[in-house]
């Protein structure tokens, strides 16, 4: 059989890419993880340090800026691949360590085991990531490339097998591609879990000449950063997915709606789109076939509700992002009234793997109802923060305590917040729940896009409910009365609780109102906004009661209900650490040189608590404030 046009065109690209990015390199390469989280930890300084040091010594060692390998707790992360050694990842790197690594490992033969986090491959010399407990649970599919390829170079992606699935898809019919995705059972990773194949079929079958594909990259959930990491580390995998989706539904144009709060992701996408055009993967007759496709990058402007698909479309049309009633669903009437498929970043990123390895392979991972993997952004009070990709059906306990290595500083686990403002707080008793779309919904939370914030005994459940309501109240678009006014009223009630005000009956009123808001809102934003309240009321009602009845915050978190106090019998006369640390000059020594906090001035920022040397440990929080011993 003669190879098809697409296959021939792709083979040329692949061959050229392979000469620039061979599988095994001759020389040493330094890769610095410089996604946004790495940059916050100082990755750019580390990058400069490596470049300076290598230039100073006239070495021929490329220093590449890569994305995030998911071990965010150890940022800044650097991987050095030197022939004769396995590729080694170094954690907590700073410019001084960078200088030493160049001197001792790149020039010399000492891999500096004291800075090693782990090797990327198993070997006899150093521990590998595969030996970490989380490796037992992880199954990286869409994160596999992240942090291992140069996101600014399309040829690196192609050399790693990128765009092969697109060429394969173009060789079959759009119907066959849709069929394959439907067969795989892939469900939308934006949170709701709607079957992707069915959405595509609806769009294909809807009347109209013009169709659109939109990639929803408006990751607005506070506490979630999976989409950002993928866009910054492996933008081409998303672009390939969008082109495949476009081919399958018969679209000529696609959009990426990305948050403007992610400047680096925007920059990476701009570069990637330009390169894809240069390589004829976008534009007129993609890979020499009859299929033509363009992608436009559209920056959102900071409105959480625009993650809702109809609001997102309104925003693309140049209007305020207000959701509208569904049906008609965007798949039948979307952008400018045309059939439109809206899929999340992760959904798009799975497509190349499903087309490449087949629907049966994908179905073999995860659970029958929710096949594939789930990507979670682990943050909060957990030792190993970062990105984890585990098969669906893994339990929360395994994710938090095995993959995330549990709670730091020996504290007790209290709850895990899943799904951002639309999700809920699940207590210890829910930890053995398997993670999939249905189980989480039954427990009162939801998959959401995958933010997972772990809370320990120092976190107050009333305060976290109040926090989310503050967020949803501000972000409510204002279309539905229940959502607009209901969230405001609920926020006021919760604020009273965190001040120790309010009455016990308010708890029932709050619960009733939460149910009403759920029922009386048009879109998922309003229908899920009360989830944080409902789950905390369901699992942590006693904590609410304590706030109301005793004016006491058991987690010692609500600022109105606590006071700081310096224990006179523990305070050391010769030490002034807290006095200098206080940001409002509220601490001063008394006649005996024991330090005293002026409660009137104190803003309860907690700096003194950190400043007090551990051998004295003289500062304590009290709740309610009336517990503070009088002079």
């Amino acid at each position, binding site marked *: 059989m003669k190879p098809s046009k697409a296959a021939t065109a792709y083979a040329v690209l692949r061959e050229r890419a392979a000469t620039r990015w061979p599988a095994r390199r001759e020389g040493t390469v330094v890769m610095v993880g410089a996604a946004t*989280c790495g940059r916050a*930890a100082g990755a750019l300084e580390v990058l400069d340090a490596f470049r300076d040091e290598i230039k100073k010594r006239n070495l021929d060692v490329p220093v590449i800026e890569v994305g995030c390998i998911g071990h965010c707790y150890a940022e800044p992360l650097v991987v050095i691949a030197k022939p004769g050694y396995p590729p080694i990842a170094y954690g907590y790197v700073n410019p001084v360590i960078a200088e030493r690594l160049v001197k001792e490992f790149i020039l010399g033969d000492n891999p500096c085991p004291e800075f090693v986090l782990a090797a990327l491959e198993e070997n006899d010399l150093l521990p590998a990531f595969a030996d970490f407990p989380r490796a037992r649970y992880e199954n990286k599919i869409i994160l596999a490339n992240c942090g291992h390829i140069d996101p600014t170079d399309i040829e690196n992606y192609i050399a790693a097998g990128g765009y092969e699935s697109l060429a394969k898809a173009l060789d079959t019919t759009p119907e066959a591609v849709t069929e394959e995705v439907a067969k795989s059972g892939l469900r939308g990773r934006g949170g709701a879990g709607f079957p992707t194949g069915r959405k595509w079929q609806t769009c294909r079958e809807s009347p109209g000449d013009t169709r659109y594909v939109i990639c929803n990259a408006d*990751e607005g959930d*506070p506490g979630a*950063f999976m989409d950002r990491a993928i866009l910054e580390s492996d933008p081409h995998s998303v672009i390939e997915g969008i082109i495949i989706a476009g081919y399958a539904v018969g679209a000529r144009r696609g959009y990426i709606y990305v948050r*403007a709060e992610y400047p680096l992701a925007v920059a990476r996408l701009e570069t990637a789109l330009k390169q894809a055009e240069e390589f004829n993967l976008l534009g007129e007759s993609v890979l020499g076939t009859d299929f033509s496709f363009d992608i436009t990058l559209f920056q959102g402007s900071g409105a959480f509700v625009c993650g809702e698909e109809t609001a997102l479309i309104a925003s693309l049309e140049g*209007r305020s992002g207000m959701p509208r009633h569904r049906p008609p669903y965007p798949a039948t009437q979307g952008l400018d009234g045309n059939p439109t498929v809206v899929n999340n970043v992760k959904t798009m990123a799975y497509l190349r793997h499903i087309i490449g390895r087949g629907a049966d392979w994908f179905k073999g991972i995860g659970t029958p109802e929710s096949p594939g993997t789930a990507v979670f952004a682990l*943050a909060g009070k957990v030792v190993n923060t970062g990105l984890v990709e585990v098969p669906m059906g893994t339990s929360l306990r395994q994710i938090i305590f095995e993959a995330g290595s549990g709670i730091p500083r020996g504290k007790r686990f209290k709850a895990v917040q899943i799904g951002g403002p639309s999700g809920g707080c699940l207590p210890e008793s829910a930890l053995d729940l398997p993670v999939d779309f249905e189980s989480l919904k039954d427990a009162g939370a939801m998959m959401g896009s995958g933010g997972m914030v772990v809370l320990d005994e120092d976190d107050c459940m009333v305060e976290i409910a109040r926090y989310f309501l503050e967020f949803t109240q501000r972000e409510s678009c204002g279309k539905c009365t229940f959502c607009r006014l209901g969230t405001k009223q609920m926020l006021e009630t919760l604020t009273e609780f965190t001040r120790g005000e309010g009455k016990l009956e308010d708890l029932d009123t709050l619960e009733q109102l939460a149910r009403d808001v759920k029922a009386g809102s048009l879109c998922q934003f309003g229908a899920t906004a009360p989830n944080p309240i409902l789950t905390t009321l369901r699992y942590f009602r006693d904590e609410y009661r304590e706030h109301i009845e005793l004016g006491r915050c058991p987690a010692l978190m609500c600022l109105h209900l606590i006071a700081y106090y310096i224990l006179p019998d523990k305070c050391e006369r010769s030490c002034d650490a807290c006095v200098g640390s206080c*940001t409002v000059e509220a601490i001063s020594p008394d006649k005996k040189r024991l330090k005293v906090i002026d409660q009137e001035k104190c803003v309860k920022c907690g700096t003194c608590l950190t400043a007090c040397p551990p051998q004295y440990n003289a500062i304590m929080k009290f709740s309610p404030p009336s517990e503070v011993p009088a002079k």
Partner: protein
Amino acid sequence: MAKAAKPPLKENKKLAEATRGVLGGFAKKRHNLIPILQKVQGKLGYLPRAAMTEIAAYLDIPTIDVYGVVTFYNQFRLNPPGRHSVRVCLGTACHMKGGHITLDAWRRRLNIDARQTTPDREFDLDTVACVGCCTMAPVTVVDDKPEGQVEPTRVDGILLAFENERKARAKDKGEAV
């Protein structure tokens, strides 16, 4: 709140002219409203009334529609920015690790509220829903650079660095510090 003084006519003319300079690159389509607003704000730093009127005329839509969109989205601002922008992240992870306490510290030190600019236009303070660096919580984005673990003492540190920079700048210009 004091009523904002109307900028002098000359200033308005300048703003309108700068806006027109941006508009040329866009087709006259309602769909382009948000990209236009982003570009104009990128150039002027904010969206003054003169710019909004200009954009409405160009797209042939009512000015109130432009104003409606500008006030709907968090990113658009109606007042000029400071020399340095301070944006405190109030995402879940940051909040639980004391983001609101950090915000209090900034408010106290700069003596302004969120969404305001210091009278000398040196700093503007704002909050942001989440910048996706949850593992570095609490985060403050200072001049587009995300800073991790910004607690009240770090706030003072960052301000001190700016103060030193300002002094160096003044010295370069030969001005008295």
